[in-house]
């Protein structure tokens, strides 16, 4: 699947396109097919996101997983600071990232 990620303009937070809006949770990512470029143009113009780009992802039984490790780390947070990730109380959160 193709998924869309970018950063929130005000906070810089990593966000994922859900099909209707942006979420901090990669698992809410929608498959954008070949619509990514158009969505980026529209959403960046509306200042809902910036630095957006399309990546390869995979829908698994456990959730949506970006193909590349860099995007998996973006999806969770720094692997060396579990307390600062999006799942600070989940010790297994790192398992699918690395």
């Amino acid at each position, binding site marked *: 699947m193709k998924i869309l990620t970018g*950063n929130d*303009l*005000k*906070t*810089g*937070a*990593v966000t994922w396109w859900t099909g209707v809006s942006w979420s901090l949770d990669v698992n809410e990512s929608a498959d954008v097919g070949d619509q990514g470029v158009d969505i980026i143009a529209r959403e*960046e113009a509306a*200042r809902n996101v*910036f*630095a957006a780009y399309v990546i390869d992802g995979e829908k698994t039984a456990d959730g949506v997983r970006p*193909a*590349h*490790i*860099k995007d998996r*780390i*973006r999806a969770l*947070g*720094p*692997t*060396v*600071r579990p307390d*600062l990730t999006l799942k600070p109380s989940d010790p297994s959160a790192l398992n699918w990232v690395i």
Partner: protein
Amino acid sequence: MYKYDQYDQQMVDTRVAEFRDQVRRRLSGELTEDQFRPLRLQNGLYLQLHAYMLRVAVPYGTLSSAQMKVLGDIADKYDRGYGHFTTRQNIQYNWIKLEDTPDILADLAAVEMHAIQTSGNCIRNISSDQYAGAAADEIVDPRPYAELLRQWSSFHPEFLVLPRKFKIAVIASETDRAAMRLHDIGIKMVKNAAGEIGAQFYVGGGMGRTPMIGPMIREFVPLDQLITYSEACLRVYNRYGRRDNKYKARIKILVHELGKDEYTRQVEEEFAHLLTLPIEPPLAELERIKTHFADPAFDTSATDDLDLSDPDFALWVKTNTHAHKQPGYVIANVSLKPVGGIPGDASADQIRLMAQLAKDYSFDELRVTHAQNIVFPHVKKADLYTLWQALDAAELSAANLDSIGDIIACPGLDYCSLANARSIPVAQKISERFGSAEKQAELGELKLKISGCINACGHHHAGHIGILGVDKKGTENYQLLLGGCEGADTSLGQITGPGFDENGIVDAVEKATGVYLANKEGDERFLDTYRRIGMAPFKEAIYG
């Protein structure tokens, strides 16, 4: 230390107001990201892997207690409670919000700090010897010259859009503690046969994807020509640097392609022209700057006695302190490399504590080192135990300076959008495996440096042992280098062979240290043994 005059302060305050307006226009939609990006980068605001990152300049690594306290407060107020000290003697915050940035810059300006020229193709923050003004082996304090260069290079209209970024280091001792020859311009303050102080110029050094050691192009530049000669070096680069290819745009490529002699000839020609203009600030300005760097009021009756009956303190004194020029005083290093820790990171509380300790015990002054540590430059030996106890209580007493545990590591793929592999977990595993006092004592001085990509922010080329993280078909892979050094005997590390995974690279380091221990003669350091016996025995042990 240097205090802003009305011009310095006005420049910084004006820039804050200007950026506040630029942020407002970006948030309101008046500016697109393409329009805004160069503006935010000019103010040190990057977009990194998880958020905006703000890089704050620490000129020549020198900080007052008040400045350090504000750095801690910013970490709490605007970030997530910590900061990251960098190999350029700066500090970075990893979780900055765009809308907060003008207020952060205003807080910095209130203590004479900023983030200007910490990004972009301009002359970056000038770096220097972290022991400047305190070391027994320096011929002069290099910081007044670094400050003069800072003033010259700040907002210099001709050099704000260079072919590529430009880094200058200034030192003033034979012991190079600033990786001087691995800078675009390295300046070594020297004394000539007549006893006059001047500047020796090394140009075209650097790390990154094409590491080079800067050759000396001028043995002695008189002090009243320091800026003029610097200007000549930059002008030739600005005119002929490769703007057509980002990867060949650094001055090291120009010097290499022209050849040292031809580059020098062109610099001398430009220098002769510039001397007719004239552009050099009067020496009175240098003298004015020097007054800011006068020695603090040392206690001339301070004792050299030190009670070393506490073994932990004794070990820390042995590893983390350095001789001071003033009897009764010592230079104390705080290693930001606890076993299993993140190199260069300090919590807001730790930063504020170090600020207070500098106020109490180091004449209000601290330094940031290119090895990502903190220095108290002027500590009375009589106060050293009290200082150490306070550091120890705050988990800031790691006794590992210049040992294998004192690892330089860039943020790597955990934070950096350019990185190919994570650096920090490798540093953590190595420090955990080799971090015991016994192991470190056995291995002696061993500088290990890790970069998460070819850009070499972790100085892997200059590590006695260097590690470079690369992307190998979508997975992290680590190359091992041996024999690098950033000191007076600067050398570049050589790759041993095929790379390793995260655990394999730690095992490879162990094999390399094993070869050292098996072949070490006398007091040889790892680097000395490597230089004597060469790469072959190491390759044999690692791959054989």
